[in-house]
C-alpha cells in the first residue's frame, strides 16, 4: 500500500522530484527554526505551539477522510487504474483489514513525508539557535500524538458517515461545538480537547511536570486507540450500486447557463451536475467554508482573544480568503475521472479554464459574504470596498496560478517539489505584501493604499499572463 501511494503521487511528478518533497519540508523547517527569534517578538512560544498543534490536528483530520474516499475508489472503478482498496473483492482479506492497512499507510506516509523532515529541520537549526534536542524530541512526540489523534478521529467520523449520515452530522456538530466552547467562550481548555497539547505544555521548554505530561500522553494514546478500534469494528463497505433512476437535470442546467456559449456551456453544465450528484456541496463545506470559519475565528481570536496588537483588519482577512481558494479548486479536480474527455473534441486547457469559471461561480458569493460579515463585525465598513476588491483579485489570481501550475491534477502536482516551490513563492510573496500593507492601513493609509493598488495591479497582470499560459503549458497534456 505504501508503494502504491508512493507510485500514485510520483507518477505525475517523477520519482526524484517527489522524493525532494521532504527535503523541501526540511529546508522550510530549518528556515523557520533559524528565524524563530523574529517570530517570537510578535507572538509567544505558547501561542506558536497552539497554532502548530491546531494545524497538525486539522492536517490529521484531512488525511483521515479515506473512509469515504475508499468507497469512492471502489465505486468509480478508476478507469485504467486499480487500487489495492479493492483487494477484498478478489482476495481472502477483509475490508476491515484493508482499511486498517490504509490507516497505517497514511500515518506512516505522512509522518515520513512531513513530520520527520520538519523535526530534522529543527534539529539542524538547534546548534545555531541553542534549541535543546530533548525539547525538539518532546515536540515531535507531542505533534505526532496530535496528528494521530486527528487522523483517528477523522477515520472514525468517515466510517460513521458511511453507516449513518445523521450520526456523522451529530458527531461533527459535537466536535465543532466543543471547539466553539473553547475558542469563543473559553469554557474548555485546549488541553482538554487535544490532550497531547497538554503534554506539550507540561514538558520542556514550557513546564516540567512529569505527572501532567504522562496523563496528557496517556489520554491521547488511549483516545486514539479507542477511536481507531471503534472505527475498525464499524467499518462497512456499502457500494451504492442500486437501481435508482435519476431525472435528467443536465438539459435544465444547460438552459440555465445560457450566458455561456458553445463548448463552455456544455462543460460548465456538466460540472454542476457532477457537483450536485457527487455530494461535493458537503465536501465543499469542509474544503472551503470550514477553513474560512477557522480563518474568521483566528482573526477574531488574535484580535480579541489574545489581544495581540497586529492589526488584523478586513483587508488582511480578504487577502487570506482569496488564498484559501486553492482548496476548492483541488476538490473540483477530484470529483470524477476525466479520461472520457480524450474521446471528445475537448482539450485539457479548455477543461482547466472551465473549472476556473466554476470555481468563481461557486466561491465568490460565499467569499463576499464572509468579507462583508467580518467588515461589519470589526466595524470597518469603510474598508469594505477595498476588502472586496482585494478578495476578488487574490481569489482570481490564486485559482489561475494554481490551475497554471497543477492543471487538472492539483493534489499530485503539489507533491512535486519544483511545482510546490513555485506555488509557495507565487502565493507567499503577494500574501506577505498584502499583509504588511493591510497592517499599515491605520498607520499611513495613503502609502498603504498606493502599495495595495500596485500589488493588485501586479496580481491582475500576472493572472492575465498565467491564464494565457495555460494553453501553452497544458495543450499537449493527457486527461
Amino acid at each position, binding site marked *: 500500500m505504501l508503494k502504491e501511494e508512493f507510485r500514485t503521487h510520483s507518477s505525475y511528478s517523477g520519482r526524484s522530484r517527489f522524493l525532494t518533497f521532504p527535503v523541501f519540508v526540511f529546508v522550510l523547517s530549518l528556515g523557520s527554526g533559524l528565524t524563530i527569534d523574529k517570530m517570537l517578538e510578535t507572538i509567544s512560544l505558547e501561542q506558536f505551539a497552539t497554532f502548530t498543534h491546531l494545524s497538525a490536528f486539522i492536517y490529521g483530520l484531512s488525511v483521515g477522510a479515506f473512509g469515504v474516499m475508499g468507497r469512492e475508489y471502489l*465505486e*468509480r*472503478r478508476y*478507469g*485504467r487504474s486499480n487500487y489495492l482498496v479493492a483487494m477484498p473483492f478478489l482476495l481472502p482479506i477483509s475490508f476491515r483489514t484493508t482499511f486498517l492497512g490504509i490507516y497505517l499507510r497514511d500515518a506512516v506516509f505522512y509522518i515520513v513525508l512531513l513530520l520527520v523532515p520538519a523535526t530534522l529541520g529543527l534539529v539542524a537549526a538547534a546548534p545555531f539557535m541553542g534549541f535543546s534536542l530533548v525539547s525538539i524530541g518532546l515536540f515531535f512526540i507531542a505533534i505526532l500524538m496530535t496528528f494521530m489523534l486527528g487522523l483517528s478521529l477523522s477515520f472514525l467520523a468517515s466510517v460513521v458517515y458511511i453507516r449513518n449520515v445523521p450520526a456523522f452530522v451529530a458527531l461533527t456538530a459535537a466536535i465543532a461545538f466543543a471547539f466553539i466552547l473553547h475558542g469563543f467562550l473559553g469554557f474548555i481548555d485546549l488541553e482538554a480537547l487535544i490532550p497531547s497539547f497538554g503534554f506539550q505544555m507540561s514538558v520542556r521548554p514550557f513546564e516540567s511536570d512529569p505527572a501532567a505530561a504522562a496523563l496528557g500522553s496517556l489520554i491521547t494514546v488511549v483516545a486514539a486507540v479507542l477511536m481507531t478500534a471503534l472505527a475498525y469494528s464499524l467499518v462497512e463497505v456499502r457500494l*451504492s*450500486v*442500486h*437501481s*435508482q*433512476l*435519476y*431525472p*435528467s*437535470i*443536465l*438539459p435544465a442546467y*444547460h438552459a440555465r447557463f445560457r450566458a455561456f456559449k*458553445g*463548448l463552455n*456551456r*456544455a*462543460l460548465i*453544465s*456538466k460540472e454542476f*451536475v*457532477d457537483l450536485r*450528484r*457527487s455530494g461535493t456541496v458537503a465536501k465543499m463545506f469542509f474544503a472551503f467554508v470550514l477553513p474560512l470559519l477557522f480563518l474568521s475565528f483566528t482573526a477574531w481570536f488574535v484580535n480579541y482573544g489574545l489581544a495581540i496588537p497586529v492589526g488584523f483588519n478586513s483587508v488582511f482577512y480578504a487577502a487570506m480568503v482569496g488564498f484559501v481558494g486553492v482548496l476548492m479548486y483541488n476538490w473540483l479536480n477530484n*470529483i*470524477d*475521472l476525466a*479520461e*472520457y474527455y*480524450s*474521446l*471528445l*473534441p*475537448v*482539450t485539457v486547457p479548455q477543461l482547466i479554464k472551465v473549472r476556473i469559471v466554476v470555481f468563481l461561480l461557486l466561491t465568490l458569493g460565499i467569499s463576499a459574504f464572509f468579507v462583508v460579515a467580518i467588515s461589519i463585525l470589526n466595524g470597518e465598513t469603510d474598508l469594505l470596498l477595498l476588502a472586496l476588491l482585494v478578495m476578488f483579485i487574490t481569489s482570481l489570481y490564486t485559482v489561475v496560478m494554481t490551475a497554471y501550475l497543477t492543471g487538472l491534477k492539483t493534489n499530485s502536482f503539489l507533491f512535486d517539489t519544483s511545482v510546490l516551490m513555485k506555488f509557495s513563492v507565487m502565493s507567499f510573496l503577494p500574501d506577505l505584501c498584502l499583509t504588511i500593507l493591510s497592517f499599515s492601513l491605520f498607520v499611513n493609509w495613503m502609502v498603504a493604499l498606493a502599495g495595495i493598488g500596485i500589488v493588485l495591479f501586479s496580481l491582475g497582470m500576472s493572472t492575465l499572463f498565467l491564464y494565457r499560459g495555460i494553453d501553452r503549458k497544458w495543450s*499537449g497534456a*493527457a486527461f
Partner: protein
Amino acid sequence: MHVLEAKGIVMEFGGLKALDNVSIAVDKADFFGFFGPNGAGKSTLIKILTGQLEPTSGSVDVLGIDVVKEPLKVKELIGIVPEVESPPTYLTGYEYLYFVGKVRNLDNLDDRIEKWLSFFDLEAKKGTICKDMSKGMRQKLMLASAFIHEPALLFMDEPFINLDPIYQRILKDYLEEYIAKGGTVFMASHILEISEKLCNKLAIVNLGKVVAQGSIDDLLKGDENLERLFLRSVGVRPGKGE
C-alpha cells in the same frame, strides 16, 4: 486517397519502444482489423491515430488532417470506442449522450439520443447514472456516444467486449451496414471469429512491429483461417488440440 495513413510511427515509453516504425494505410469503406497479442501496442496505436497520444516520431493523416498538429479537428470528425469503458460517473445514460451532443454541437439531438438509446435497448435505464450501470450497459453507452454524430471513420478498441451474444450480433450487423454505406472502421480485437467475417484488410502487430499487413484474402493461405494466420504471424504454433 487513403482516409487514414500512418507512416513510421515510433512510440517510446521511458526508453522502451512500444511501437517501432509502424506504417498503415486504410481506404474509404475498409473494415481494417488490427490484431496482436496482449501488450503488442494495439491500444497505443489507436490512441496515436485518434490524437489522444503524441507519437515519439512519425506522421499520421486522418481524413486529410495531420493528427499530431490538429488532434482536436480529427476528434470532431471521428468516433472512438475506447478499450476501457469509462463514461462520467455521475451522468445518466441520457445525460451523457446529451453532453456528447452538445460538445459536438449536433442538431436534432433529442432524435439522435432516442435513436441510440433505443438501438442499444437503454431506454428503460436512461435515468441510471453511469456508476450504477453494468459493464455491458456502459459499453453500449460508449458505443452510442461514438456513433451519435455519424462519423465517417470509426476507431474501436475491443468493441464486442462485455456485450452479450445478442448485441454482438446486432453490432456486427450495424457495422456491416455502416461499411456498405461508405463508412470506414479501424478495429482492434481479440475476437477473431467475428473479425474474420467483418474485416477486408488487416495488420498484425507483435512486440511493437507490424509482422503482417494486407487484404485478408491475400494473407490467408489455402484453407487457413484468421486464427491460424494470427498464430503463424506472431510465431506461435497451434497446440496439440488443433
